Each structure stands twice: as C-alpha cells, then as structure tokens.
C-alpha cells in the first residue's frame, strides 16, 4: 500500500477501514542469502539498501526485541553533516544527502526538518577552530555560516549573552542541519524493506554464530537455526556480546548517555543549539517538548539509565545557556547504550570470518548516520568492498594507527 495525501483523504471517507499493517510478520525461513542481526535504524537501512541498490531481497533482519526498540528510538533526533576529518566528512555529507531524499524514497513521512543547527563558541581559539571546520564543511559541498555574537543574537535572542564563564562570541550555523522523527525513520525503513521482500523477524534473538573453516554458515536463534552465506552484525551497544559468538573481541566499550524531554510547550526554540563547553544541546520537538542532553556518564554500562550527577550537570548547563527554560518541567529522562570506540568514530568492515561483516562503533552519533551506514554496509556485504565514503571506518585502524579522532582527544576508551 502506497501512502499519499489522496490515500489519507480516501481512507477518511471510508472510516479508515482500509489501512493494513505496515509490514508482514513472517516466520523465519531455513536459509537466506543474507542475514542482518539487529532491527534498529542501521540494520533496517542495511536491509533496505541491500534490496534496493543491490537486488539482494532474500534477506532476513533478526531482532531480539521489537523493531526500532533500541537507540534509534532513544536518541535526540539530530541530523547534521558538520564533520571535519577526511573519512568522516564525506560520509556524513553522503548521509545528509540521503536524508534530503529519504521521505520520497521510502514513501514515509520521517518529519525531517532542516531547521538549522548552531554550534556556539566562547573564545577566539574556538572561533578559529569553528572557522576551520566551516571551511572543511564548505569544501565538502555542505553549508556553513560563521556567525558573530550579533548574528547569534538575531537568531537566538533568548540565550544568556552576558554569561561571564562562557561568554558567547558567536556560532557556526549549519542551515541544512536539523532533526527528524526518530521512530518514523525505523518504521519507514522497515516498511520499505518489507515491501521489497525483506523478512523482518522480531522476538528472534541470535544465540550463536555458525562458522566452518573460517567461513560463515549461518546463525543459531531462539527461533531455530538459520543458514546464510552472509551475515552482518549491526547491534550497536550489544556488539561486544554478538561478536564474542564469532570469537572476536572488539575495540568497543558500551557506555550510558542520557537525554531528557520536558512537557510540551509552544514553539520557542526554532533551531538545534549545541553548547559544547557545557556539554549541552537542545532542540524542540514538533510535539513541543524540549529535547536535550549532555555528555556520557563516563563509565561502562548496559543499564539504559543514568545517574543523578549527570542529570544535575545537564540541567545546570541548560540554565547557564538559556535561563528561560528554568520553569519548564522535565517529563522524563532515559539512557541509551552507546557503542563507544576508542577514537570516537565508527567501524564498517569485514571480519576475520569470510562472509561476516561488522557495523558498529557509532558512539553518540549514530542517528544521523542511519541512511549512509546502511548504504555503505549494504555495499560492503554485496560487493565485498568498502564503499568510497566509508573506506576509513576500518576495524584494524587502532592497530595500524589510521585513527579518526574527530575530537582530537586521543584514542582511549574513556576519552570520548
């Protein structure tokens, strides 16, 4: 069933009795050409692009819970392409271009809203760094505008410009940055993959990976054994456990990252604002809630909930930046399980097992990468070669020293 304005109108006339489930609920077959472990954003987009770009439709996505129940439904929905390093810059640029055509491509409203993203700076040194980053973005073909203090004041008059600790000197505006409705991205990819013949199998936990003579044979699951010549591990925070089934130890440590949302308010924050010095960023959802977050709690955790010191820190940073939000009531907070790599950049690569592929290490930036990650992972699984824009996301880069340390803080697990 294709969605359209006409369809909504016609169904309205018929009492909305013609809508059908957005995807099938198939039982797993005994064998597929390819299996994707993990039904989150990245896994679903990988399956979709395997079918769409490479004609591989005999594909199963195995999800231990429900589709989109992990980080793709637990993030702060920011979409941007403001990376600096070669290797990251072209990848996120590719991803943003895919975002811009995503709704038409998927025939699904993901509510992609290019409302503009502002990264604030507070010193001359930071201004220089942002000017350089903006130039890198422009060289990549994306957009960046360096704003001075008055330029920021015009866009965001409600910030505290007189703060003595972090006086606002200006900001880097990325007009094509913005947000999207996170659940809809998972659902849109799921529906589009299903329409191309991909089997989406929920409540199906992978319990073992079958390897014979260095080659992948399939997986063991709670719903029986499933054979496949190609298997992709796309499980974010759970990468360590799934990779261990294939005898691998990954350069990944899973950490907690918290986020918060307030009660619904009238439109007040039109952009995405990032206050790096306070580890704070904020936007307003279409429902009206202020959506904001901070930095990691900074210890390994699978609890999917954080601790109070970081809650306090985030609230303090928010009040420092925009005192006007002080009377908004926080409705809820939550935590995601972040697959942190030592240098803060992802991995899309083959493994030592032929036919077994790995997509992980998305740190706290996986949401905006969903389209390009799936695109490049599908390319890798279909062709055996890394995609041009993801060729530096190598698993062995920590051993070889070809790091992608976007923050410039070092290649160590507790630094990103």
């Amino acid at each position, binding site marked *: 069933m294709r969605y359209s304005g006409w369809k909504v109108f016609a169904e309205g006339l018929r009492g909305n009795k013609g809508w059908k489930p957005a995807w099938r609920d198939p039982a797993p077959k005994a064998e597929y050409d390819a299996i994707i472990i993990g039904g989150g954003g990245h896994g679903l987009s990988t399956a979709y692009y395997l079918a769409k770009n490479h004609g591989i439709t005999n594909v199963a996505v195995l999800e231990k819970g429900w589709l989109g129940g992990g980080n793709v439904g637990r993030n702060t929905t920011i979409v941007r392409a403001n990376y600096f390093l070669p290797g990251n810059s072209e990848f996120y640029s590719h991803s943003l271009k895919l975002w811009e055509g995503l709704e038409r491509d998927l025939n699904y409203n993901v509510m992609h809203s290019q409302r503009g993203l502002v990264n604030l700076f507070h010193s001359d040194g930071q201004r220089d760094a942002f000017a350089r980053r903006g130039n890198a973005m422009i060289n990549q073909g994306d957009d960046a505008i360096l704003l001075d203090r008055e330029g920021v004041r015009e866009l965001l008059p409600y910030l505290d410009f007189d703060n003595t600790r972090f006086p606002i000197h200006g900001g880097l505006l990325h007009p094509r940055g913005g947000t999207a409705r996170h659940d809809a991205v998972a659902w849109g990819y799921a529906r589009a993959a299903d329409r191309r013949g991909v089997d989406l199998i929920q409540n199906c936990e992978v319990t073992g990976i079958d390897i014979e003579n260095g080659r992948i044979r399939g997986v063991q699951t709670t719903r029986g054994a499933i054979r496949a010549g190609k298997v992709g591990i796309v499980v974010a925070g*759970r*990468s*360590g*456990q799934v990779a*261990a089934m294939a005898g691998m*130890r*990954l*350069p*990944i*440590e*899973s950490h907690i990252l918290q986020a918060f949302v307030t009660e619904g308010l009238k439109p007040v924050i039109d952009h995405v604002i990032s206050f790096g010095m306070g580890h704070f960023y904020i936007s307003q959802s279409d429902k009206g809630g202020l959506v904001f977050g901070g930095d990691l709690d*900074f*210890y*390994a*955790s*699978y*609890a999917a909930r954080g*601790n*109070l*010191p970081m809650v306090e820190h985030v609230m303090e940073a928010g009040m420092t930046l925009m005192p006007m939000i002080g009377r908004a009531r926080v409705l809820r907070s939550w935590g995601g399980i972040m697959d942190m790599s*030592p240098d803060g950049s992802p991995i899309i690569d083959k493994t030592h097992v032929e036919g077994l592929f790995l997509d992980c290490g998305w740190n706290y930036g996986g949401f905006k990468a969903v389209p390009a990650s799936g695109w490049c992972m599908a390319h890798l699984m279909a062709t055996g070669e890394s995609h041009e824009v993801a060729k530096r996301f190598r698993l062995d880069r*920590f*051993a070889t020293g070809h790091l992608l340390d976007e923050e410039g803080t070092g*290649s*160590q*697990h*507790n630094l990103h």
Partner: protein
Amino acid sequence: MRLTCPLCGPRDRREFYYYGAEDYLNRPDAGAPGSAWDDYLHNRDNPAGMTRDLWYHEQGCAQWLIVTRNTVTHAVTAVDLVAGRQGAAT
C-alpha cells in the same frame, strides 16, 4: 552512585575518575608484538554483567581502585586497592 573507597569509605561518584577495564593492569612487555599492545589498549570483553574496572579516587586519597560491579544493575560488590592486589609492586 557511590563507591566505598577502602581508605575513605563511601564517597560520591563525582570524586572518582573512571579509567576503564581491568585489562589496563596487564601491560605487555616492552618487546611484545604490536598486536599485544593493540589488544591491551583497545580491545575489550565489554561484558553485560559483572565487570572489574579501574577508578581513580581523584578528589580523595588519590588511590587507584579496582571496582567489581554489575554493568546492567549498577550494583557495586567490591572496591579494592590496586596497590593491594597480589603481585603488586611494593
């Protein structure tokens, strides 16, 4: 979250600096192959459940600690001095 430092008693999490998995205590020999150093610095078991990791009591006694805790429940079962473990330099 509180950690019970063996020297200072129960203290707020904010007094401690988290370093990472206990693996950091098993430093390879200087002549070990690059793969051993890569493993030591980067690769982790990353368990969902009981783990032992290193914390530094930065705003307390300045001791390195081995914390035995559960990464799923955040329950802390033991906090020991790195200096007190078997084979530690005296």
